[in-house]
């Protein structure tokens, strides 16, 4: 029996969320942990899955798999599960991971749990705890099928970093032409930026920032912290910032260690996107802003004065 982990890469390295998925698989202690990478990647980069607990990496690098084709990727993952006699598939929640997981669940007749927040309880059955109601509650479910798929949320387990790089073997997958009904005609992606769902620290701005021309002060703070930038729904609706930075109920849900909200009043729909953050800091000129009730730390005052001071203080700390 083994545990298969579908891993994704960004800018040449395995994504941190995927390394967390490998760490999770290792912590399951249910047999050999095998990572599966699909598409172009350097072997030396993939070998690092070993550091988080994989004993080997399978690499499906057929030319046709260069693009993130959901259907083809799902076929490869299901095939690898079968060949490696995997009982469990673990992956990080992402735009690709979710799509792949749902298709593999049907192909492999597996029970699927998404948004898993901690390790399962094996004492009676296979019980997993997952986030529901957009972070406002959890449910404990017993997975009944022989095979299980767990799509894990960020910070479900600590990142394991004490292993050693492992072997990377080519995985020859069967290419099914019908899977290529989906054509990717273009990709637009911000480069060199920390991805919002992966970030340990997020600096987010709302209407209180008064306009897109003022975003540089948040970007400076984010840079000093190694943080990603996010925004509230009105900000993305007004197109001050791109939609992929919108944090909230109908946007991205984040669970960083530190979330700094600047000029965001804290509507319940915004809180739904940030309520699993470890530490919430709110900066707002309105002392009555509802966000303060959900915050760990708060400062009442003018963001245009406070944020640059905060950036300077962080820089001083790092110097």
């Amino acid at each position: 029996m083994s545990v298969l982990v579908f891993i994704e890469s960004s800018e040449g390295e395995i994504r941190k969320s995927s390394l967390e998925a490998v760490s999770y698989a290792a912590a399951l202690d249910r047999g050999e942990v095998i990572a599966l990478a699909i598409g172009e990647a350097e072997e030396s980069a993939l070998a690092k899955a070993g550091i988080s607990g994989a004993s080997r990496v399978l690499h499906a690098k057929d030319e046709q798999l260069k693009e993130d084709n959901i259907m083809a990727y799902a076929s490869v993952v299901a095939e690898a599960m079968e060949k490696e006699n995997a009982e469990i598939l673990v992956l990080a929640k992402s735009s690709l991971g979710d799509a792949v997981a749902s298709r593999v669940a049907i192909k492999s007749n597996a029970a699927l749990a998404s948004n898993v927040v901690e390790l399962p309880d094996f004492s009676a059955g296979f019980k997993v705890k997952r986030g529901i109601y957009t972070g406002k509650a959890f449910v404990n479910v017993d997975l009944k099928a022989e095979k299980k798929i767990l799509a894990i949320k960020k910070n479900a387990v600590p990142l394991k970093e004490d292993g050693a790089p492992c072997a990377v073997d080519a995985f020859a997958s069967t290419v099914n032409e019908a899977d290529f009904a989906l054509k990717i005609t273009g990709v637009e992606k911000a480069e060199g930026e920390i991805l919002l769902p992966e970030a340990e620290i997020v600096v987010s701005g709302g209407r209180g920032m008064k306009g897109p021309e003022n975003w540089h002060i948040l970007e400076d703070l984010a840079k000093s912290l190694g943080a990603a930038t996010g925004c509230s729904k009105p900000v993305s609706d007004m197109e001050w910032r791109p939609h992929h930075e919108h944090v909230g109920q109908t946007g991205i849900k984040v669970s960083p260690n530190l979330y700094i909200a600047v000029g965001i009043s804290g509507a319940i729909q915004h809180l739904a996107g940030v309520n699993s953050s470890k530490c919430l800091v709110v900066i707002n000129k309105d002392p009555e802003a509802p966000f303060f009730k959900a915050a760990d730390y708060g400062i009442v005052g003018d963001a245009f004065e406070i944020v640059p001071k905060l950036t300077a203080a962080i820089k001083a700390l790092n110097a």
Partner: protein
Amino acid sequence: MKILVCISHVPDTTSKIAFTDNNTKFDTSGVQFVIGPYDDYALARAVELKASHGASVTVLNVGEASTEPTIRKALAIGADEAIRVNAFPSDSHFVASQIAEVAKQGSYDLILMGRESIDFNGGMVHGMVAEMLGMPSVSPVMRLDIEGDLAKMSREIEGGHEEVEVKLPFVAGCQEPIAEWKIPNMRGIMSARTKPLNVLEPVEVGEFSVVENYELPPAKGEVRMVDADNVEELVRLLKEEAKVL
């Protein structure tokens, strides 16, 4: 063109979440139920496509009789007819199986739904339905245009978006800004009363997961306020107390 829009019946986004019966049941008291916000985007786009391309729109919900007011609202927004599969939506496998069965019977060109329901948040149903039907699936879709038998879409990915093309039929999980939410007008509300709402019995599905119980997150402590003239104190607290720097 025949469009199937699958909607969930979920607590309004401002609802306070609580459980009863020793944390085994969702507490519906005082909770207002609505069409899932993402499903509402899917429905709005379907109604737009109906106007621009001359489609028929069928709305589908897997739920008990209590969901009918939500279904009627979807009819008021502009769907032509509705189907309710008479069952509690116990998990994504179950719901996907019911949707796939209805889709097979109706041979739809386009199956739309939200990227996820806001109660169970799995975001898995569209992919499962597509796999069951042997169709492509695309999610989360932020733009959807139909040109003949070809659909052109923009799909959100981490840090950007991807342009995707696929031939009909297919399944899409939708999100903003695919369309503007539509508010039913008086004429829509009146006509919704007489539009057909067919109730079907569910197909049998094997058991994949069983809910044991629910939990609420631990209560949040008091906020600690820091003076605006002393941001150094905030940095110290974040480093030494919260240990997040």
